[in-house]
């Protein structure tokens, strides 16, 4: 029995959507119809959730019934475990839209002598497929099937090949899960993927600098293109798996030439008319240089111009943010009462970075702000491994631009004078504008200086301007006379515009 005679690229492979949007993007629209996909992962990596979501999306959204062959948990356990994702498995079972083949371990005395076949399994699957008119099929997990017949892996292999071929003939789109021993070792135990799968997808739940980082990776797609590399995923209540799309997939945001106020008239002049509508600006500075003040001005300036403004804070409580604003003559309460402003304060440690990204996206989609401030990125950077942080920034900036929002993010320098933070290094290439706030020593005086370091697509004042902060906010003054080194003694080369 031959498995796949079609190794040529078929440009018109029909796609089966998995319900995990950003994942479907990775595989050019979905899993190819009538093909077999192996989803490999370590225990707890989300294989069963992925598999169930694949069926749930078909049933709930596309009128495609499904069959779930479970070798591990009983149907009732799956029912229960998946209820938190908002899937009404019980109702689907009652309506025969979802039919289980229960191959979970039972209390039995059983011995295996000599040769056998898996006709029992295949017959039951086909029976369930006919009963439900299924288009999608899940086998979860093959590893358990091998463990059931632990003494005869060769027979199971041979029989599984036969089963897979028969299922393919039925035109079913099949998703099989397989357990992995390690995140970066062989694809699956028993090397199942080598003989049954057209496509291989890996789910990971890796420990990186003491933090769990979930990702999904498409390893192989027979006869089809796919996006390479790991993409962050997260498990969301009432939703299931959500992949976090990387902006590298869609970089074609239009650039607006429309300017909006920074909330500070003098800064608007320095930037030749304010910030761009769909741009992201980074404000970088040591603690106490006035970042939060710039944020406050940015929000207040937007509200004064009739815009809606959203602040997501990770460093200070709502109360503290409101008190700060009041100290600079800005009334956040009144703005919130008007529905023009929304201030959200979150603990960076409360959730993972991809979850933070989803939270921001949800807030934006719900509140529909014209401008968004994030204070600060450095607080988020603390909780993330480096690669994860860069992915987060890419996704965040592209999301802000796609929604044509004016974004302002802050980053805190660790050293008081000069220096660059890691987030600065990451974000400098991703943001459109960079404003540096620095302490600058003059004789025995410590002054504050502001500099527009970069502004994409625009002329800007390149001088380092003195500024002061009082009860009315920030006042930009004259440029510094000498040529102070805003990057500090170590003279790190600044990011280029």
């Amino acid at each position, binding site marked *: 029995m031959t498995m796949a005679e079609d190794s040529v690229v078929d440009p018109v492979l029909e796609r089966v959507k998995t319900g995990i949007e950003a994942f479907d993007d990775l595989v050019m629209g979905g899993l190819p119809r009538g093909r077999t996909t192996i989803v490999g992962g370590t225990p707890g990596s989300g294989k069963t959730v992925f598999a169930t979501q694949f069926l749930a999306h078909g049933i709930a959204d596309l009128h495609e019934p499904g069959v779930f062959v479970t070798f591990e948990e009983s149907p009732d356990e799956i029912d229960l475990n998946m209820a938190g994702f908002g899937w009404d498995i019980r109702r689907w079972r009652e309506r025969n839209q979802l039919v289980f*083949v*229960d*191959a979970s371990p*039972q*209390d*039995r*005395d*059983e*011995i*295996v*002598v*000599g*040769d*056998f*076949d*898996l*006709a*029992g*399994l295949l*017959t*039951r699957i*086909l*029976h*369930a497929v006919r009963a439900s008119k299924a288009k999608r099929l899940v086998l979860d997990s093959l590893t358990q*099937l091998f463990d*059931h*017949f632990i003494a005869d892996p060769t027979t199971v292999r041979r029989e599984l090949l036969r089963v897979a071929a028969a299922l393919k003939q039925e035109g079913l789109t099949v998703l099989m899960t397989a357990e992995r021993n390690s995140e970066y070792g062989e694809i699956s135990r028993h090397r199942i993927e080598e003989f049954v799968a057209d496509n291989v997808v890996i789910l990971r739940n890796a420990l990186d600098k003491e933090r769990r980082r979930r990702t999904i990776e498409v390893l192989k797609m027979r006869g089809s293109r796919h996006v390479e590399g790991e993409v962050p995923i997260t498990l969301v209540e009432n939703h299931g798996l959500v992949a976090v799309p990387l902006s590298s997939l869609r970089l074609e945001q239009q650039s607006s030439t429309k300017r909006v106020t920074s909330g500070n008239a003098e800064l608007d002049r320095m930037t030749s008319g304010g910030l761009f509508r769909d741009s992201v600006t980074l404000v970088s500075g040591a603690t106490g240089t006035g970042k939060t003040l710039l944020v406050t001005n940015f929000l207040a300036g937007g509200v004064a111009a009739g815009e809606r403004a959203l602040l997501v804070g990770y460093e200070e409580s709502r109360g503290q943010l409101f008190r700060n604003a009041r100290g600079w003559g800005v009334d956040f309460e009144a703005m919130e009462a008007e529905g023009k402003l929304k201030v959200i304060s979150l603990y960076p440690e409360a959730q993972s970075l991809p979850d933070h990204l989803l939270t921001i996206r949800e807030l934006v989609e719900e509140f529909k702000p014209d401008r968004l401030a994030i204070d600060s990125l450095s607080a988020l950077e603390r909780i993330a491994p480096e690669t994860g942080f860069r992915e987060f920034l890419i996704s965040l900036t592209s999301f802000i631009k796609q929604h044509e929002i004016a974004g302002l993010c802050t980053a805190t320098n660790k050293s008081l004078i000069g220096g660059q933070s890691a987030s600065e290094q990451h974000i400098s290439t991703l943001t459109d504008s960079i404003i540096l706030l620095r302490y600058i020593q003059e004789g025995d005086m410590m002054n504050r200086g502001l500099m527009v370091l970069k502004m994409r697509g625009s002329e800007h004042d390149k001088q380092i301007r003195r500024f002061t902060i009082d009860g009315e906010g920030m006042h930009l003054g004259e440029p510094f006379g000498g040529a102070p080194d805003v990057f500090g003694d170590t003279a790190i080369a600044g990011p280029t515009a």
Partner: protein
Amino acid sequence: MNMNDVTGKVVRPMLRLYLAGDAPGARRALEGRKRLIDAALEPIDIEVIDILERPAEAEIAGILATPTLSDETVTPPRRLIGDISNTAQVLEYFGYRNKDASA
């Protein structure tokens, strides 16, 4: 399925043999079944279930592999998967006495 044995007494099916169509394995299993009935000291009934014709039975019994010989009258059910041609071993596993052994 009830059967009359030679004495005319009705006996309950005690064992079930699940097999798939007329594959070579299924035919060997049917021969094995005949030998078991012949060799057992007590009357022994082995009901044959072709899962291709009765897939619902396979689902209810949770059959994965064929052939499977199953005693569902005991808890937990007792099963032998694969080759049932070793008559003495099979009878012993299911707790039946062998004519030869008891003679």
